């Protein structure tokens, strides 16, 4: 079973590499940057930030606030990541009627406000003797 899955995987991977060859010759730097950018940014920047954030939250905040604030930070981070393609438009196509014409910054701020209101309410309604996390 493992071997079947593994061999199939190697086959699909190889097919993808073949399909990618024209792109490699066409724009190697841009492609390479996007392929390596994710792992590098994640391992060297994002994950250490999360680790430091987790340590700070668990040392600074009283137990009943740790989980809600930790979760709030995670959800906020995901929302910020999703907003980037809409807020940083240097390389974007033109805005056309009905597309990409929403107030995205206001939308992000509203979404974050909803998240942090939820965090505050959750923190307040948790009993004082709740363990550090649910």
């Amino acid at each position, binding site marked *: 079973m493992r071997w079947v899955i593994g061999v199939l995987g190697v086959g*699909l*991977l190889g097919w993808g590499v073949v399909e990618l060859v024209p792109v490699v010759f066409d724009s190697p730097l841009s*492609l390479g940057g996007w392929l390596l950018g994710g792992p590098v940014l994640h391992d060297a920047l994002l994950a250490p930030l999360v680790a430091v954030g987790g340590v700070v939250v668990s040392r600074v905040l009283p137990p009943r606030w740790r989980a809600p604030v*930790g979760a709030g930070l995670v959800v906020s981070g995901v929302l910020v990541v999703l907003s980037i393609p809409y807020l940083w438009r240097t390389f974007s196509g033109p805005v056309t009627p009905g597309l990409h014409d929403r107030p995205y910054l206001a939308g992000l701020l509203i979404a974050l406000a909803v998240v942090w209101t939820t965090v505050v309410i959750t923190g307040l309604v948790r009993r004082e003797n709740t363990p550090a996390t649910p």
Partner: protein
Amino acid sequence: MRIPEEADFASPTHGPRVSARIGLWLGIAFGLCFITGLISHGIQHPAAWFTWPSRPVSLYRITQGVHVTSGVAAIPLLLAKLWSVYPKLFGRPLVKSVPHALERGSILVLIGASFFELLTGVFNVAQNYPWAFFFPTAHYAVAWIAVGALLVHIAVKLPVIREALTRSEEEPRPTTGALSRRGFLLTTGVATGAAVLATVGGTVPWLRNVSVFASRSATGVPVNRRAEAAQVSTVDESWRLTVGDVEFSLAELRAMPQTTADLPIACVEGWSASATWTGVPVKDLLERAGVPAGSDVRVESLEQGGLYRSSTLPGTHTADPLTLLALRMNGEVLTLDHGYPCRVIAPSRPGVLQTKWVSRLEVR
């Protein structure tokens, strides 16, 4: 300060039990995304054996909505998955053996390809292109690499996954960070839900006002390519639609029996919008031109350049009475931006193939 070691990460949010669960969800998201992506690719670049049904009319709207939504959902899942195994990055020695080196290498390929697919995908949905390559080719090729590397990873880890998912008891580990194991899984679920809710309104009408990062705005049928960008201007009385060897004036098209139908425009970029279209069934036009029913038809636009100035309607679609050469949208004559004098609107098709400013239907 020193570089951390694997053992420094004491939080219960790391380890196989978390990793296998989130991995399972992520695997489902990747699977859905891959299959719906292949469908969309198949419709746009059909192999000889490929056919795509014209009914239900919303089929492509659903498959492409699933494609973009499962991709968005995979972003928080991927980040959570990587967090659960992050300590492994600091495992030493860096390489223990040849198989170990191959495994680490395959994981780098998997992570690189996964980030590539998800990030280029969400940028493309926003019509934002901070790269030099042609998105469809690269996104398609790297999808095979990501799924291939994922299968290799599953094959390598199968015993670990099986044990982590079936073993019911484990030493409880104290919470050392902000979140417990359960709290982390719950947070991952909430973050995934938030990501979906923030974007899915582009295709789910009743969430349109909730989704702050939906690509389309709250009202109206979006225009993806404006007449100005396509360098098309309004036509005069001399305009004729050519179908095979027969020509039709706009007045003749308007005089033919009209069909009115509610059909969605479903963009490859994941948004969709329903409208009420009125026009002449392509089937009737082909009949008038003496073309056998169910022929493949090449649709040519007045647009001179552009990647999508023509499309091919397969026989399944030309035989469907709801495949229209639309003259009106929501009761009004088509505006120039929406394809005046006429455009194709066919059920269950990518929007990019619903050719606007049609000048010719050529039988293949």
